[in-house]
């Protein structure tokens, strides 16, 4: 379960448009509520570590950037509870590549950016056996 305030989804949509026709990516910073649900407080844009010519359909947040995002979250009294990225001119549905590279527990937010304009925004969590994503938003 994820709670994504309008301010955070608006920020992700704007990042998706800024990066178009490439993919944007970043971390979701927030906290856990009493029932184990995740509440996003803010987003942390992270530069796409893939080669420029691959960024139209790929992103990577490398291990050093991953550690930096955890450090930033801790400094703000928050946790990294997931990640977001954009799908330029593709639907807001995880690809097989997304699933093969996903970790359990995190929320994965995807925004579809069609012809430079952000539209659908969804959120997903990897199923425990890695076979599929479960839609949470």
């Amino acid at each position, binding site marked *: 379960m994820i709670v994504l305030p309008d301010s955070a989804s608006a920020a992700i949509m704007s990042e998706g448009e800024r990066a178009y026709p490439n993919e944007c990516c970043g971390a979701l910073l927030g906290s856990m509520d009493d029932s184990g649900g995740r509440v996003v407080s803010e987003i942390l844009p992270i530069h796409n570590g893939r080669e420029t010519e691959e960024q139209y359909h790929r992103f990577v947040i490398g291990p050093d950037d991953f*550690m930096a995002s955890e450090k930033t979250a801790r400094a703000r009294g928050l946790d990294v509870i997931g990640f977001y990225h954009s799908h330029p001119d593709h639907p807001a549905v995880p690809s097989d*590549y997304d699933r093969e590279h996903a970790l*359990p527990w995190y929320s994965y937010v995807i925004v579809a950016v069609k012809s430079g304009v952000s539209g659908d925004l969804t959120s997903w969590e990897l199923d425990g056996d890695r076979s599929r994503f479960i839609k949470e938003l």
Partner: protein
Amino acid sequence: MPVTIQIPTALRVFTDRKSEVQAKGAIIAEAIADFAASYPDIKQHLYDEGGTLRSFINIYLGDTNIKNLGGLDTPLKDGDILMLVPAIAGGSNP
């Protein structure tokens, strides 16, 4: 060699919420395998179907990515600290 392995938040569901665990091994590959044997549910997230460590799982010995050392064959000393650090990757299509 007894070493400590630090676990990222997302994988602590498999380690009884522990942020670090102890493992044994003369080289890094052995310590990671020992750890995975103690927490079998974590295996599928660390290794692919062929038993190779997944490309997005990085291991740091102290502050150094083991890619810049001897990789999984890097020898360990008593008390070494290993950190599992994921890279986050994805994209829109195959």
